[in-house]
């Protein structure tokens, strides 16, 4: 049901965004022909259960969802709603109990370790809540690490641009322990974007940051979407962070209960005050919004 409703709205957005192109720099648009608004990642009938026969916990209950190119999607929901599980399954960190995960037309859910490594090198970027950086490497080395691991050539122009956007030029030779939490997360963002992955998964990227640092990081993520057509999927429980997103998915008890396009901060807040007071009627209110 959620799938159907979201598909209509997405088609609209696709038309709007057709003229834009995904690519590194706006002036030399990449000629891979991948249209913005096309589906980058998709979950089909995704179910994830934990535990054995006696005590089954359903984290995801037949979830269908698509993520479009050039969009920043926030996944929200209370603890235990399955938002992290959804992201982990999408990113190939967790294997679903049933259903499929498809990223860039590749079926992630059935991949071997080797294929997953290739996927992570070529299609996926990660930003975690904490411990994003290898402590023995400098900021610059951390940013370049994914490319070096994948033995790819380094695009210096792109590196300079990313570094300037995150404002870390003066900090490149510092070790993570010499950087503030906000700076560390910006390095992590720069690293995630450096390889220009199809999709960046961010797991509570601002969870450990103060509000000023949070808005810097989110602002940077947002601009990478708007300027370079980067696709970002972000799990957060912070409505302020979610308000930066183009689209907000709300999960509860393993189901997508709402799918909001460009919601304002107040709208998100409103949803959660509802959810908090009556979490059980999440489905009903979700239909209301989508219709």
């Amino acid at each position, binding site marked *: 049901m959620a799938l159907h409703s979201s598909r209509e709205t997405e088609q609209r957005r696709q038309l709007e965004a057709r003229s834009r192109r995904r690519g590194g720099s706006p002036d030399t648009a990449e000629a891979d022909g991948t249209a913005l608004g096309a589906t980058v990642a998709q979950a089909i009938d995704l179910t994830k259960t934990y535990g054995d026969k006696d005590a089954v916990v359903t984290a995801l209950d037949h979830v269908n969802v698509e993520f479009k190119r050039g969009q920043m999607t926030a996944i929200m929901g209370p603890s235990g709603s399955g938002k*992290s599980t959804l992201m*982990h399954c999408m990113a190939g*960190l*967790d294997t679903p109990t049933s259903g499929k995960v498809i990223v860039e037309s590749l079926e992630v859910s059935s991949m071997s*370790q*080797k294929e997953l*490594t290739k996927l*992570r*090198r070529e299609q996926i*970027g*990660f930003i*975690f*809540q*904490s*411990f*994003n*950086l*290898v*402590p*023995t*490497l400098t900021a610059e*080395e951390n940013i370049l*690490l*994914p490319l*070096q*691991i*994948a033995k790819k050539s380094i695009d210096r122009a792109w590196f300079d641009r990313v570094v300037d956007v995150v404002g870390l030029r003066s900090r490149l030779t510092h070790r993570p322990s010499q950087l503030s939490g906000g700076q560390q997360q910006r390095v992590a963002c720069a*690293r995630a974007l450096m390889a220009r992955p199809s999709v960046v998964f961010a*797991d*509570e990227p601002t*969870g450990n940051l103060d509000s000023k640092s949070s808005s810097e990081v989110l602002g940077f993520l947002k601009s990478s979407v708007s300027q370079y057509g980067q696709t970002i999927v972000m799990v957060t429980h912070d409505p302020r962070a979610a308000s930066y997103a183009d689209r907000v998915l709300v999960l509860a008890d393993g189901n997508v209960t709402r799918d909001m396009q460009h919601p304002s901060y107040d709208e998100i807040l409103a949803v959660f005050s509802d959810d908090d007071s009556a979490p059980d009627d999440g489905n009903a209110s979700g239909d209301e919004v989508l219709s």
Partner: protein
Amino acid sequence: MIKIGLREARSHFSRFVMSIIAIALGVGFVVGSFCFREMLNNQVDQMMASNMDADVYVRGDKAVSDDGSSSSQNTYNDISISLTDDVSSLSGVKSAKVTYSVSGLVLVGKDGNAVATVGAPTLGIGISSAEPWRSASLTQGSYASGKDEIALDSYAAQKADLKVGDQTTLVYPDGPRTVKVSGIFHTSNSQAGALIIGLDPTVAKASSDALAEDPNVTQYIAVYGSANGGTALDAAQQSALADTINNSLPASSKARAVTGDTIRDEQSQSVKDSLGFIQPLILIFAIIALFVGSFIIANTFSMIVRESMRGYALLRSVGASPGQVFATVIVQAIVLGIVGSLAGIGLGWGMVKLIAEGMSQIGSPLTGSSNPTWRDVIIALLVGVCVSLFGAALPAKHASLAPPLQAMNETVNPEKPTRLRAMLGGIMCILGIGCWVFTVMLADNKDGLTPWKTVNDMNSGWPLGVGAALLVIGFIVLSPALVTGVSRVLGSLPSVFFPVTGKLATRNLARSKRRTANTAAALFVGIAIVSCLGVVASSAKASVAGIVDNGLKSEFVAMASGGMGVIPDAAVDAVKGVDGVKSVTANKLLQHVEYDGKSSTASTVTTDSSLFTDVFTPANTEGDPTKALKNNEMVVAKNTADDHGWAIGDRIEVSTDLATVKLTVGAITSDATFSSSIIIGHTEADKLVVPQMQRTTAMYISTTKGADLAKVKKDLIAAVKPYYVISVMDRDEFKSTISSMVDQIMLILYALLALSIVIAIFGIVNTLALSVSERTREIGLLRAIGTGKGQVRGMLAIEASMISVFGTLIGLLVGSAAGVVIQKVYASQGLETLSVPWGQLIVFLFMAILVGVLASLPPARRALKVPVLDAVASE
């Protein structure tokens, strides 16, 4: 709390496996070394009990100092054999006799070859039904009568594959003879591989007399008491009998009776003392194993404590005191120590059993008990438990004192700076190098190095040893400070081939410098010992080869039993008769010679003057050695002359029991070939030592010009064939014989090296396992951003290899340097040529890389087993 500790110990058991193995190895070495020593002692006691089985011995009443050797045994003045009759007529005496034994026999087996022993002698003993040997019982046939019959100990018969009635050859000191096996007897215990041959007592006496300076005296008269009807007397009866005999002995006999027990204790003590060096050697490796063991335990507990931090925090928050938390960890350490020690006791016991079995396989059966005593078991348990407590103390303290909140914290506290250790270790190393420099200077320049005579006369072994100890400990102390620099240098090579993983590995090493350095230390010590001995062994081989190539003029060398036996005079004469032989120079060893009333560490040799013309012309000589020998003067090695303070023209009083002569120092040679020897002419030698007692150790054979060497060699071999154990070698064979002797010794060392490498591998595995457990999230992160499994494995393999190469490099450096210093010190005593076995050292380096790669496999598997999600998930 104890219950919690025990429960945790059970749940952590798989974690403890490596610690248990390490403790078991260390304790195993300790127990093994004790058991081995006790087995040898026991064997010696048994042999003494059966081979010296008389109730009372009569011997000289005055101890004669024994050549200043370290043996605890004194030599007493000889007594007249005529006392035998006086003693045997006393009441309570069943029989009194002089037991004659003949050494240097060669028994030929059924296959026509000499029966080989491993270092053990072939001994002939006078034995007959009239003069039986209490510990031997005749099982077949009869005792020998006459020179053409022999009886064999059952072990000798089995080795030679001879039966009663068989004909074979026995080489007596005066030549070979065809003999018949008349009987086989059995002794109550094994003789550690010695071949015992029963000879007719008159034959034994005749052979023994022929070799004696004075056939009318002996060292001991064995007295058997009659009190128990022929069986052994107890201690009280022995001393009663000894008193009886003493009362009857006139003072003029200069003899005294002592109990059999006293003699046996003295004898076995002196043998035990001479075997005492074995245990410390084994204990060195025990110490390495225990050092690594305590270190592994510390690492293991650090891991366990890190993982159980939340549990401890919970215990603390429900009111447990830090002491109680400490106790839960310590209980686990004690359990671990006890389990490891018990395993180690079994291991050590098994090792000794295996050694005993191996010895009997190669022909040295031992019947000594190899079972550990209660004392050994208690020592082993104490060592094991102490080592594991020592290892667990710091992590336990950490567990009990860490604030509960820190439980969640992944970050490892930054290390204390290593500057203090760098300074301390640096100073020790500099002092150590200073000691070595001083050692070399002392060896180069015996006189006048310092104004102090005591310092100049100091044995260079002291500064050498102190220097080595300072350097080894110094490097262990210093090494954490070296880690950063060394890992940068070592890391540059893998970083070329593996830019990312190489860089990560290099930086990871420098994270916990102490841990890296301690892990490397295990390998360091083992490699240092082996590379030091490798340099010495290789130098020894090169020195011999150098002498043979550059100085040896004679074409052939003949030796008996690989240089350890005696060549009969008849064999020397036989060789002289071979066609094409120009001269035969037989070097004869003279024993118990004193100079100006003092014994000397140098060996006294008598030889023909052809030694200096046909065999070896010394290069650096004061005086003319050939002329000196012809003039009945002494030729002295430079180092010996220095020791005694002799100069050319000095007249020295040379004395033995037999005679005293005055000899002039005629020549001094600094040539290493002659180091530590004093060479005198035959005329004077015959005055000092009866010719029968001059033992020919080697003969050098020079051929006439133009002789067909191949034919001469064939003839020589044929000439010595009847003597069975004499081998004739040409120069190349001589060189390879010496080097294979050196190689055999090195083989034992390599076995010990292999063990220390196994221990070092455990250390590296454990250190990496700890490091991987601390870096779970980091490795998860690396994998999340696309690091393949192979890359993670590669990173850990590079880390492990760098640790082992680090340890190996310092070990090679210190060990080889020690070898070089030893070579310099002993250069004047024959270790002339320095030879560094580069190939071998390079093999060690490659082996280190292999060891590292091997050691990284288990931790890598463990690191990769953790799902990426578990590692990176924030909750």
